[in-house]
Structures are given as structure tokens and as C-alpha cells.
């Protein structure tokens, strides 16, 4: 559906994106995820036609659109702040593109009302000024305004970033529902990994203008392809080579002690996991514990590593700081990366091969 081929974007002598290749399938919810300034928005704007790439081609439906202006690419966009026109009513905002296309007024009105209904905006809301709407309603106006032109692709540029946490969760859900209802190919930009994991069919993780990994949320999380992806997504503890050696001693040496090793916090436990005989017990001392109600976060020092882990507060008795503890780790959960290249090594290839 969408293909970015060898895209290079420069601003003066600053190269924002050196070389980008991406493919997005039809109907997919595809997310560009990365920290501030990683090039994800630049990639989206290149796709939207607001930025001319220095090199490379953009294809939509097999057709090169690289030189086409934004409005000829059949892409709709929802902006970071929605970019609703404050001097117009909701109806006028949604109808804007139709009126630019010189659709007949009656036809525009029909289309506006139809799309408004589908995104759950009432007829009385259509007459309101955009400033009178809540954040969630504004978002739906922005989506409706983009969708009424029947684009092939919907681009969303951090549309939830300027909302408070509670509303963000609620709108995330609504947005995802709208997307699956319309079935439209969607490219979503965010720096919020939680959002990306929860909403996407596939994610591309960006770092310094380069795509580090493309994959489903689960593969990105469980089998992070590079050290950057591993540290950017989720929460993990750094493991020392001592710790790896200890694991190898118990399990027959499948891990590389020279690699940079990480363990996700939820993958370690203080009790023997049921039914998993390959979990290795490692002795340590509790350094700290912080209580969070649902769970407690522990830091246990073993073999030079500060292993962080979560313990469910289910009413049981748990060790206190200063006390001894046994940490159970499955070597297959250890994520390992080459210290020079940052690429995944050994164990991860194994993990990636798991279903």
C-alpha cells in the first residue's frame, strides 16, 4: 500500500533521515515510534508531502507520488493539535476540503452529516464552534475532516500528545475503534511506547533517522532486534558478565558473557515459576523495595547486577531490604547485544525463532 524507498531527508547540512525503507500493508495500523528528534515525524511529513526528500521515492498503491503535492496523494492527516480552524464551525471545518473541491453544497452537507454520524458527532455539535468542543470531540472532528475526503491513507501525528493521561487512554481506544471500523490504512506517529504497543498492528522503531526494527508489538518487545530497541521499549535490568556466567553454570552455557545483556523486569521472579524447570535460581540480597499497591518493585543485587523485578502484592510474605532472596531467571529471556554493533546476538536469535 505504502512504500518508502531509500528516502533521504536533509535540512541544510543536517541529515534528518539518511536512508529509509518502509512498507505498510493495506488496512494496517502502522506506528512510527521513537524518542524526540528521531525522525519519525519527518518520515510522516515526507509521506504527507510536506517535505521534499533529497533522494528516494514514495509509492502509494504502487504509484510514485514523491513529486505530487500533499492534496494529490490521497492522504488524510490528523495533526498533533488537530489544526482545526478556530474561525469556523464544526460543519465548516469538516466541509472545508469538499468546498475546496467545489462539491455541490447539498452533496457536501450529506457527506459531512454521514461522516459526522460515523464518528459520533451530533447534528447540534456540527453547528458549534470548535472551541466549544471537548478534547475528545475535537479529535473526532479532526478525524472526520480527514476521512470525509475518502483518502486511501490516514496519517496521525501524535494526536494524543497534548492531552492529559486519562483522556489519552480513552481517546486511544476510540481512535483504534474508528480505525478498525473504517478499515483504513493508518500511519501513526508517537513517542509513547505504551500507545504504540496497545494500538498497532506493526511498529517501526526509529532512532536518529534510522529504522532499528519493524515488527509486531510482541516481537518488538520480546525480541528487540537492537540494544536501542531493547532499552527504549519496556523496562529492563542490565546484567553483568558475572551474572551471565552464573546462569551459564546452571544451564549449560548458551549465553555469551561478553555481550551486553538485559532482562525485562517482569521476566524475573522471586519464586520458582510453575511448570518451568529451566528457570535458574540466582542468590542475591534485596537492595530496595517500593510499594505500588498492585505490586512492589524490588531491586535485588546478585553477582554484581541490580536485578529489578515486580512482585504481585497478593497478601503473601515478601522479603524486606537487606534480606536474602533468590531470583529465578530463564536464560531464554535474557536479551543479548553485540557491544560494538548493538545487534542482537545468540540467544535472541533463539528467542526470535519461538512462535
Amino acid at each position, binding site marked *: 500500500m505504502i512504500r518508502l524507498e531509500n528516502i533521504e531527508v536533509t535540512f*541544510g547540512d543536517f541529515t*534528518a533521515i539518511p536512508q529509509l525503507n518502509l512498507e505498510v500493508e493495506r488496512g494496517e495500523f502502522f506506528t512510527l515510534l521513537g524518542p524526540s528528534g528521531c525522525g519519525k515525524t519527518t518520515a510522516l511529513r515526507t509521506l504527507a508531502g510536506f*517535505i521534499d526528500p533529497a533522494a528516494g521515492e514514495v509509492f502509494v498503491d504502487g504509484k510514485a507520488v514523491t513529486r505530487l503535492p500533499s492534496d494529490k496523494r490521497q492522504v488524510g492527516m490528523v495533526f498533533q493539535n*488537530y489544526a482545526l480552524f478556530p474561525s469556523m464551525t464544526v460543519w465548516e471545518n469538516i466541509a472545508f476540503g469538499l468546498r*475546496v473541491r467545489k462539491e455541490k453544497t447539498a452533496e457536501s452537507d450529506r457527506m459531512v452529516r454521514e461522516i459526522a454520524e460515523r464518528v459520533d458527532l451530533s447534528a447540534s455539535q456540527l453547528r458549534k464552534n470548535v472551541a466549544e468542543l471537548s478534547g475528545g470531540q475535537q479529535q473526532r472532528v479532526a478525524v472526520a475532516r480527514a476521512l470525509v475526503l475518502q483518502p486511501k491513507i490516514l496519517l496521525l501525528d501524535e494526536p494524543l500528545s497534548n492531552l492529559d493521561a486519562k483522556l489519552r487512554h480513552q481517546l486511544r481506544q476510540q481512535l483504534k475503534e474508528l480505525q478498525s471500523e473504517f478499515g483504513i490504512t493508518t500511519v501513526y506517529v508517537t513517542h509513547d511506547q505504551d500507545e504504540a504497543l496497545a494500538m498497532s498492528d506493526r511498529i517501526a522503531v526509529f532512532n536518529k533517522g534510522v529504522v532499528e526494527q519493524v515488527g509486531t508489538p510482541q516481537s518488538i518487545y520480546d525480541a528487540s532486534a537492537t540494544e536501542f530497541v531493547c532499552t527504549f521499549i519496556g523496562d529492563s535490568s542490565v546484567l553483568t558478565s558475572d551474572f551471565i556466567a552464573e546462569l551459564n553454570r546452571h544451564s549449560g552455557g548458551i549465553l555469551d558473557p561478553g555481550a551486553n545483556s538485559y532482562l525485562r523486569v517482569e521476566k524475573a521472579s522471586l519464586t520458582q515459576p510453575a511448570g518451568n524447570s529451566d528457570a535458574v535460581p540466582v542468590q542475591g540480597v534485596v537492595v530496595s523495595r517500593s510499594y505500588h499497591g498492585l505490586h512492589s518493585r524490588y531491586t535485588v543485587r546478585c553477582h554484581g547486577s541490580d536485578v529489578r523485578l515486580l512482585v504481585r502484592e497478593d497478601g503473601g510474605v515478601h522479603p524486606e531490604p537487606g534480606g536474602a532472596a533468590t531470583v529465578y531467571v530463564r536464560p531464554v529471556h535474557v536479551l543479548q547485544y553485540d557491544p560494538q554493533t548493538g545487534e542482537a546476538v545468540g540467544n535472541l536469535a533463539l528467542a526470535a525463532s519461538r512462535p
Partner: protein
Amino acid sequence: MKATPVRSMVRSPFVLAVGVVLTWFIAAFLVWPNANVLIETFFPDGRFSGRAAEKLLSSERAMKSLGNSFLLAAALSVTVNVVGIFIVLVTHYFRIRGARILFLGYATTFIYGGIVLAAGYKFIYGDKGIVTALLGNLFPGMDRNWFSGFLAVLVVMTFATTTNHMLFVANALKGVDHQTIEAAKNMGASTWTILRRIVLPMLKPTLFAVTILSFLTGLGALSAPQVLGGREFQTITPMILTFTNSPTSRDLAALLAVILGVATILMLAVMTRMERGGTYFSVSKVSSALEKQKITHPVGNAIVHVAAYLLFAIYTLPVALIVIYSFADSAAIQTGQISFDSLTLDNYVRVLTQPSGLRPFVISIVYSALAAVIAVGGLLFVARLLQKHRNWLTAVFEYLLHIPWILPSALLALGLIISYDHPNPLVGGAVLTGTTVILLVAFVTVKIPFTLRMLKASFASVNSSLEEAGAIMGARTLYIFRRILLPLVLPTAAAIAALNFNNLLDDYDTAIFLAHPLVQPLGLVIKANTDGAEGVEGVSNTFVYTVLLMVITGLTMYLVYGRTRKRDASPAQKDPAPEDLSSKNPAQKDPVLSEA
């Protein structure tokens, strides 16, 4: 801030002292003079009389001037908007080559205006003007008086008053969220559609306010019609002036001033009403800075470029000629023909060393400096009290202090003249009319509203915990004011004083009514020179005064605004390449950075 009851407020001796002085000042100089104009007009002998109105209706000149004023006001509202919007768009919205240079050209009205500008245009395009002299050599049969009357006044005032557009409209334009423009582009809107449907509607409230200000400027115009209007085009304010000077027609002057005042109040009321209802606040929390738009149509682009540079020439030609001819000898000024060796420093030496040349300059500087310092110094306490205590009493004081803002200066001046031309108990039985004090009073008065607003805002911006911290450590109110608040507000106060000083330096509209006959400030001398009072020497003196005024004003503006303007303007003013970098840099999109 919560309301303070009046009773607890007046318990403080400090508040009481300020209150007494303030009440006296407001009563003596803001309320009584203007009430007196009304009384003089409608109750000349203690009983209601329609005589002034009858006189007005039977005076053809006066009626014509009324009509002319409204004509000028209406025409000016249109022309200033056309020119003003255009120059704002080419300097801030469209990608125009050399936009920075254009901006400087259009901004020349920041450093010279009023009588100085009117005089400048007359010396260049008037019957004895430099350009007219040059043209006269080429076309001996031409009408030497071509630049006078309604059109000349309209042209001069149009180019003199686009300052408001450069300030307010340009600022409103910066508030337009660039994402809305991209959204419109994404939906297929053309450059013209975006401008018409998205950008201009956003500017509508500001444009409306600026239009009213232009209308009022036209209505109350004094110097331009006087200097360039000629016999056939006179407006209200020059009429008021004429009628004021003869005691038998003072009631007529008063009535005209009242009409002008009522019209002004009505327009301002409409403006406040519209302002309250019509501002479009951007609905977004994170908006992105405006990027300059390329005009894609090649012919349209060329036309806009040509028009922009043509306007640039109109704006800068008078300034350039004044600067050049300020060095020229009298022969060059008379014929318009200039050569390199007719340029000397003689004019400057004469103005700066001869008492007659230097005197008006010194008088203006003394008056302006005194008025600026008194206004700011006095209002420091008042602004603080009004900002700290909110109740009906302070609200009344604040409204009264805004009287000079809603009334035209001609009315204020006339009020002072007729109220203090006989011993008056309000000022200890003294006569003020004809003394040097009355102009100072007027200067201070007209600067009150602006000074008060700015000072109040400055006090409001001081973190209130600083004051509370001082109080908790045992400091008294006055001590806190002196040691904590004042140092924080002082830079703003200095800036306000500087702007006031600038503004009064070339004042004409107030001085023409009130100045002492032997202590004439600069504006009056310049005006006299346009009538040929001092011959060619007067003309070259005026050029020198103008250059010196521009230097002083420019310097003050730079000191006050220079640094902030530079910071504000840079994203919009930069040439295309770095601009792309700064505004399209992906880092800027990320909320962490944009919030920071």
C-alpha cells in the same frame, strides 16, 4: 487576586495619601476640564442654550470640516487596511525576496510620524518641495501645488499610520497555527483560498480593532490636514484650533470637540464590545510557528514582488531625501538639484550651536523628559495599589484614569484652556492658561492610560510569593515595595518612560493648543517652518531636527524592543534556507521540546 474591602484598604496611611493626591489630580485635570467643556457648550450662562449648535449649523466652514473629517476617517479605514495588510503579508506571511529590507523600509513610520512626517512630505512633494522642484524643471507647465488637498492628506496619513498593522496585525499573524495551513493544503486549498478562508478570518478581530484606530486617527487628524490640506480641505481638529483662538467662537470649538469626543467614545465602545466577543483563540495547546508561504503562481508572485518594492520606495523615499538634504545647502534645497559638494555639516552645526536652532529642541527634550518621569514616577504607586486592591473604588479610579484614552487630545486641551484661564480654587487659585505648566500637565495627562496599563501589567507579573516571603520575614508594605517590587518593575518602568519621552518629543497636537508663546516645543517650530516662517533655513533646520528625532527615536526603540524584536522576528525574518531548518526540524515537533 481576591477583592480587598474598601474599608480595610483606606486604613493604610500610605493608601490614603496616594488616594488623596490621585483624587485631586483626577478631579482637577481629568474630570473638571472636560465637564467644563460640556458646560461651556450647553450651559454658557448657567442655563441650557442651543446657541453653539445654531452657530455650528450656520457656519459653512465648520459643517464642511465635520463632513471632511468623517470622509477622511472612512477613506483612511480602507486605505490603511489595504496597505497595512499588504505590507504585513509580504513581510510576515509570504516568502518574498528581501523581506527583511522591506520590513525595515515599512518600519520607518515607527521612528517618524505626526507633524514631522507631514512636514517631510510637504518639503518633498509640496509646492516648494524638492521633488516638485525637480519635476518642475522637467515639466515647466505642471501645477506646483499638485500635492495638496484631500488626496494628499489621505496618502500621507495612510503611509503614516500602518504602524498599528505592523505591530498588532503582524503579531496576530504570528499566532496563526501553521498546522491549520498545512491541514488546508492537505485538503487541496490554494494559496489564495488559505489566505481568504483561514488566515484572514483569524486576523479579523485584530483587523477590526486596527480599523477603528485608523478611523479615529482620521477623525481627529490635525497636522496632516493643516500642513497639506490646503484651503479647501480642512477637518474638525484644525477648526477647533482656529475657533479656540478667538474668545467669541470658543463655544463652537467646544461643541466640535464634544462631537469629536462622542464619536470617539462610540467607536471605542464598539471596539471593546467586538473585542470581548470575537477573539479566536487557537483551540490547540501545542501550535507550531508560522512558516512563510511561497506564492506558487509565477505571475502573481511577480506582481506581489513589484508592489512590495514600490511601496518600499514610497515609504523610504521621504526618509532618504530628508537625510540627504539635511546636509545640503539652501540652493540645493530650493532647486532640488544636489551635487556631492553641496553636502556639508553646516546645517547640523547651525542647529546645534545657534541658540535659535537649539532652543526648540531643548524645550521639547525638557518637557518630554519631565512629563515621562512624572507620569511613570507618580503612577508607580497608583498602579501598585490598583493591582493589589480590587474593589469598586479602585475600579472607579481606574476608569477615570482612562479618560485621556477615550477623549481626543483636542478636547482635553480645550478643557484645560477654558478651565484655567481664570483663578481656579482647584489649583490654589492660580491661572494656568498661558503658562509653561499647562502643557506639562497635558503631557502628563495624555500619557496616563498607557503608562498605567503597562505598569499594572508589570506589577501583576511579579511573583506574589516574593511579597509574601518579604512579609513573613517582617518587612513592612513600603519596605517591600521599595526593596522587592520596585527593583523588579524598574526596567519596565524605564522602558515606559523612554517610550513616553519618544512619543512626546515631536508632539504637535497638544502643544499647538497649550504651549507658552515664548517656549515653543519642536513640533510647533517644525509646523511654522512648513508655512515658510524661517525661509530655506527653516526648511533645512527641520530636516536636521527630523534626522535627530529619528536617531533618538530609533535608538530608544532599539533599546526598548530591539532585543525582543530580534528574537521574535528571527524565525519569520530569516531567509528561506535556515528557516527551513529551524521550523521543519523534527525535534521541534516533539512535545517535550515544544513544551520546554
